[in-house]
């Protein structure tokens, strides 16, 4: 039967042995991290972004690399998902974007601070995370949008087949199309039947002028972006 001194040897030996292995793997991890996280892109702007991230305890609500709290969305791939334009609008006034929904603290960031946070999240988005977060697999995400664009394409010709990037990053944060997207604003299926091109353009330019008190935020889009978006939205018959 096991004696007490044998038990002690198991404890001391096991701990020492596995600690050494752990240290060795740590050294190897540190050496590999530079490449896996693109350390050459770790600019002063990114580092300032991380400081803002830490200083305001963003992880107290969000997760980043899956770490943090579960009150607000996962942000590892937010740059890819929402794009800089949306993040800029959102960080200016977070509570305007999802009115009546879960609130983010208004931090009154200055424009350069917003740029730093975005730079940080862009850098994080490019880390090799071994495949996290994985793309949804139960309903193939391309299937529903392919159907949407296919029907749009057949109705209007091939030029409008793919939505502009701004549509998927910005609009779909709140609106859905063919079931994909947010539920904060109304679905955009058939929106072209409800708006004229002129009215749509004005709506995107200044929502309050069309419908005072609306929850739709002024996105501050450039004329070119707005025209492109309006043109595409008008194909959604």
């Amino acid at each position, binding site marked *: 039967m096991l004696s007490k001194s044998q038990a002690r040897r198991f404890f001391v030996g096991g701990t020492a042995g596995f600690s050494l292995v752990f240290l060795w793997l740590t050294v190897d991890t540190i050496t590999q991290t530079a490449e*896996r996280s693109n350390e050459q892109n770790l600019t002063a702007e990114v580092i300032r972004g991380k400081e803002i991230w830490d200083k305001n305890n963003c992880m107290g609500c969000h997760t980043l690399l899956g770490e943090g709290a579960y009150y607000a969305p996962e942000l590892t791939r937010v740059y890819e998902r929402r794009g800089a334009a949306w993040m800029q609008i959102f960080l200016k006034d977070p509570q305007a974007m999802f009115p009546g929904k879960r609130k983010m603290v208004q931090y009154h960031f200055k424009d350069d601070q917003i740029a730093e946070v975005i730079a940080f999240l862009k850098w994080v988005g490019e880390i090799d995370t071994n495949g996290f977060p994985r793309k949804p697999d139960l309903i193939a995400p391309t299937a529903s949008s392919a159907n949407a664009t296919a029907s749009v394409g057949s109705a209007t010709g091939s030029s409008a087949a793919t939505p502009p990037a701004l549509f998927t990053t910005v609009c779909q944060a709140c609106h859905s199309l063919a079931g994909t997207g947010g539920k904060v604003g109304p679905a955009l299926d058939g929106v072209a039947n409800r708006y004229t091109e002129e009215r749509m353009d004005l709506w995107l330019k200044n929502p309050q002028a069309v419908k005072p008190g609306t929850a739709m935020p002024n996105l501050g889009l450039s004329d070119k972006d707005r025209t492109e978006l309006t043109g595409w939205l008008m194909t959604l018959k």
Partner: protein
Amino acid sequence: MKYASQRIAYVYFATCMLLLSLQIVYGFIMAFAHIGYDVLHDWIPFNTARATHTNLLVVWLLCGFMGAAYYIIPDEAERELYSVKLAWVQWASLVVVSVTAVIGFHLNWWEGRKFLEIPRPLDYLVVINVLMFLFNIGMTALKGRRFSTTGIVLYTGLFSAALLYLPGMIHFNSQVLDSYFRWWVVHLWVEGVWELIMGALLSFLLIKLTGVDREIIEKWLYVIVGLTFVSGILGTGHHYYWIGAPRYWLMVGGVFSALEPLAFLAMAMYVVAMSRKGGRNHPNRIALFWTISCGILSFVGAGFLGFAHTIPQVNIWTHGTLITAMHGHLAFWGAYATIVLAIISYAMPQMTGRKRYSGWVAEWAFWTSNVGMLGMTGAFGVAGVTQVYLERRVGMDFLTVQDAVAVHFIGLVLAASLFTLGIGLYIWDFIAHGLPSLEVLETRDQDTAVKAAV
């Protein structure tokens, strides 16, 4: 109680009760925010409530460990505490640091690194505080007449916990390395050295409550803490799957995390076997209840539920969802909260001479808090699984899914109310014990002495 200086433990235990109550308040704030009632948003936004909730947990557990050490180390070393005055100073500084940190969280003053939110200047104060503590119990043990395994394991656990706090203070510009070394503190604490502390406290309680031979209990203590480290050190790998660390961590973390429940299973079997084996029928059944629930729920919460989502194939979907909250709640409750409540339940009658353990209050406190916590775990579990499927696997929008799972947070609030009732009863019982008294100083565990005579 054998030594007058052991009474200092009372101050630490009382602080535990206060901090635990506050922790629960902040838990409710978050649960209501999840349902949509974030009415305190302007004063206590979610990230403040969250940091306060988790940091209060860490501080009250540490406070409980320290109180336990001040009670146990003199008992094991067979002498008075080295310096009672130093223990008071250390307690006061701990309170000052905690209060400052909590107020700071409400003023957006923090570091924003999960679980290690307290700002850097306060980190240094924590280090000084812990050094004071280690010096005090270290000197007590050194000058003592007996070096017991339980004492040594407890001291090693506390010392390593202090040492492992340091990697969390290194500054990194890279989020990857920042996260990598943050887990050295968080993981190696809760799935490493804290288990040493927990194991030592369990073995102290088992020696006192069951009367099984010290040599046997301590032999198995070595086996258990050995298993803890053999699995737990490389088990840190389950935090390294997706943070930018190399791919081999999926294999290393996966295999060793799968072994981690073994340490907890051993712990559960150890507690149950020893309490069955014991010939001694200690009258403080409630302390034994808490001890057994610690053994069993740490296996369920930390071991089983931890294992359930640390397999990489599962974790890639569940990582960073409410599933983690499910595991976190039962793990901390089972492994650490119950052991602190067990030692308090054991020590209070010893220190005050009031044998309240046969009353209904203590018993109801035990059952309602445990059932309440199991209910909370269930609510988090259902919400978590739903979130994983709708958001991660189907690809639905985050806020839409949160609306869909909000109903489970009503369940959470109900279970939490039951839990709070239990904790309320526990605290009532704690207060009803009154203050420690010198009249109960005895050379032996008085209850044991009575029973042995019978």
